[in-house]
């Protein structure tokens, strides 16, 4: 059997980290393949988060996490215009709701300054009310972190992967890594869709990071402990009530429950932090959702009576330790990026640079001189959406103003939506207040024959 030339790098996992690594190594000159076991990218931890671009003001000082967040933040700012990625510059306030929390703001401010975030500023009660007049009068004051911003958590990684693909990378979806053998020079990877060879493997398998580790090395260097976060999304009318990300004074275990505008023009409350064993099922429950609503209304009393648009839950790939679990086995040509929790969206580009440095230390390479810069879908509410430009055909999803042109584009090109979740993330169709009351049937028709779990199970005459 003819042995094909091995890939320089095989990346396991198409979450935000895998996509960012694929982009970075491709631009660095590597021949890259990305394997994703699901039918589309962003199907695991990356599909549900709070979409904040973090400064790292509260990250552990001196940590790799902090370094990657800050490097990732800066690169996002540097590349976002060329990839047409949005940013909503909101700033965040860590709000103290009692004297104990107020007392801890000093420490948080100090950590922020130690982390190089020198523009943080204390807000007293009046300054806070002036900035956010709808905020509950119970708020005692807070710490303003001006450069905490919002981004599109799905278009960004999609853009990273699209740029990798446009510059020569390959992606294999519905492809699960089964095992790997390292022969001293290359890896031979057995997958659910066949074998392939790669010189270096980068494990970005997120919620399955430890399992992939075991399949490659026969041992696990960390254990994934999935941590579920439930969210409630309020109607777009709610977004007028808040301009700043409202953060709680964090606990040791979690950043706590955030009330934030979204780049899509909604208001979001979440996440909870619930340990569970299951890695790919993230259910919601009525009691928790109710408590999130109440929490949001306590922070922003004017939210009372505001309709809920959507509910969702995400899983963070936490491990038995708080820090990122990054390991480079130089002998084995294996880089493991594990335990990337809620900060992964921000840190992804930084982690990719980190991987790039590790990889370049033992691999000769020539960065692409003139890479292609494809554009991501623009879904941010404050930017010019597709419907503002003529020739869109018709608007299919009226709640989110999604055009037929956008839907057709998302079903076409080098990385078409692989399932309904992927289509929603690429377009927002069906994600609005009616949740498909108006557009679900049209979507079923437009996507007929494309998805493994179709929206329609058959035709009327069946």
């Amino acid at each position, binding site marked *: 059997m003819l042995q094909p030339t091995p890939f320089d790098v095989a990346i396991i996992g198409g979450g935000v980290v895998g996509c960012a690594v694929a982009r970075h190594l491709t631009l660095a000159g590597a021949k890259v393949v990305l394997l994703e076991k699901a039918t589309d990218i962003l199907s695991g931890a990356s599909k549900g988060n709070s979409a904040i671009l973090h400064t790292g003001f509260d990250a552990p000082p001196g940590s790799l996490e902090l370094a990657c967040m800050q490097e990732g933040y800066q690169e996002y700012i540097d590349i976002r215009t*060329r990839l*047409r990625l949005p940013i909503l510059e909101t700033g965040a306030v860590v709000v103290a709701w009692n004297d104990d929390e107020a007392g801890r703001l000093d420490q948080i401010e100090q950590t922020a300054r130690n982390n190089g975030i020198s523009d943080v500023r204390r807000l007293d009660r009046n300054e806070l009310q002036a900035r956010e007049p709808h905020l509950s009068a119970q708020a005692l004051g807070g710490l303003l972190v001006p450069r905490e911003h919002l981004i599109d958590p799905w278009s960004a990684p999609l853009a990273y992967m699209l740029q990798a693909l446009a510059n020569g990378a390959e992606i294999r979806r519905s492809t699960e890594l089964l095992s790997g053998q390292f022969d001293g020079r290359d890896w031979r990877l057995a997958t659910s869709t066949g074998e392939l060879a790669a010189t270096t493997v980068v494990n970005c398998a997120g919620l399955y990071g430890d399992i992939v580790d075991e399949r490659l090395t026969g041992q696990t260097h960390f254990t994934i402990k999935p941590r579920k976060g439930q969210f409630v*999304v309020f*109607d*777009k*009318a709610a977004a*007028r009530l808040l301009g700043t990300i409202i953060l709680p004074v964090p606990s040791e275990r979690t950043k706590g429950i955030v009330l934030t505008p979204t780049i899509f023009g909604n208001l979001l409350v979440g996440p909870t932090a619930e340990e569970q064993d299951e890695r*790919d*099922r*993230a*259910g*919601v*429950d*009525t009691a928790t*959702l*109710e408590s999130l*609503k109440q929490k949001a209304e306590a922070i922003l009393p004017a939210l009372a*009576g505001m*309709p*809920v*648009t*959507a*509910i*969702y839950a995400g899983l963070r790939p936490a491990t038995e330790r708080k820090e990122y679990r990054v390991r480079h086995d130089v002998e084995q040509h294996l880089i493991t990026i594990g335990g990337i929790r809620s900060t992964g969206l921000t840190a992804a580009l930084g982690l990719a640079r980190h991987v790039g440095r590790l990889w370049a230390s033992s691999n000769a390479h020539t960065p692409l001189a003139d890479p292609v810069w494809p*554009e991501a879908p623009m879904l941010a509410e404050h930017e*010019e959406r597709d*419907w*503002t*430009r*003529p*020739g*869109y*055909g*018709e*608007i299919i999803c*009226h*709640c989110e*103003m999604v055009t037929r042109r956008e839907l057709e584009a998302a079903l076409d090109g080098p990385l078409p939506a692989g399932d309904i979740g992927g289509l929603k993330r690429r377009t927002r169709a069906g994600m609005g*207040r*009616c*949740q*498909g*009351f*108006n557009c*679900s*049937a*049209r979507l*079923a*028709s437009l996507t007929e024959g494309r998805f*493994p*779990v*179709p*929206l*329609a*199970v*058959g*035709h*009327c*005459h*069946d």
Partner: protein
Amino acid sequence: MTEPTMTEPANPLSVDVAVIGGGPAGLSAAIELKRRGIGQVVVFDRDVEAGGVPRHCGHPPFGLREFGRLLTGPAYARRLVRHALQAGVEIRLNHAVVALHPEGHLELATPDGRIAVRAKRVLLATGIRETPRSARLVTGTRPVGVINTGALQAYVHLQGMIPFRRPVIVGTELVSLSAIATCLTHGMRPVAMVEARSRPTARWPLALLPHLVGIPVHYRTEIAAIDGDGRVESVILQKQDGERTTLACDGVLFTGGFVPEASLVRLSHLTLDAHSGGPRIDQFGRCSDSLYYAAGNLLRAVETAGWSFREGRRIAGYIADDLQGSLAKAERLIPIVPGRDIKLAVPQQIALPGLLAGARTIELRVEEASTGHLDVSSNGRTLLRKPLSALPERRILLDLKALGLLDDATEIRVEMRP
């Protein structure tokens, strides 16, 4: 990188009346406005065809009072559109109003770019939708196959497709029974019907339908959880006493729980009524900005197409009066305050002068089944007290004239008392 072609709205299109929404209320209003001699009446509908919700209700009875014959929903919608066009109404399809502004200024999205409209008067008739699973905060995973009746009917009647074969139906409203009929005539067999209340919401004898076709109905029961990874695989039903059972199915149909499609109002300068979920209006259908009127199910969930048709026509009459100078400006408003057990009141306020010149009735609904006396008072004086046994989702009509409201009233209070 290509720069997006920006299309700033050019000169606004000036019309006499802009009707937003081409369903029964909007179209009948437009027809009436033309009949009253109003010049340019334009209906803007965001969909590819006009007619509204009846377009995908493939069953009678529609049109008995309007057209004197029994029609299916789609036939009724087509007839409405035809009558409107014959009356000289301009219907602009694929025209989505995206913002309402003072002075009758509207922003619209069209496939040819954005446009601005300046209307002397605006009629909001954007109708309703059902409450989706998300807003019901239902426990479970989020698989494919969880939809509303509106979507089901669009699958079947507009796309010729079916979204599941063995759904569980949640709710027992009229629309829930229509969903059963849609299922049974298109190869879907509901496995159960679930109702949190102790009795069906729809009227007898229609509520007998599931029994007649052999679909088990579980009262005092809710969906405790939805399960399934890709598609729905099962639901857990929970009775009020806590008993739980798992039921295999491939879909969940959340029916009813209608809410006004009031997003435009919510995002605008107009006042929203928290009780009805629609815009706050007076007895002439006038909103808090008197250039704006509203009619149809946007005012309250939910009435029949026939009711919406008549309401649209009536309010169109006041708009015509207004444009022709015979509708008095509101000098004073008497709010109608819903009290105990009362879910909503429409209109929400009475404008003076013109106490008896507009709607003849105040429409009320109760939150839950309520038995006792309906008590209407004004400034501490009882205007009406009558025994009432009321069920949710059923209209209660108060004759405004019979209340004998005094000109110096500052509020009208409506509540249920034992």
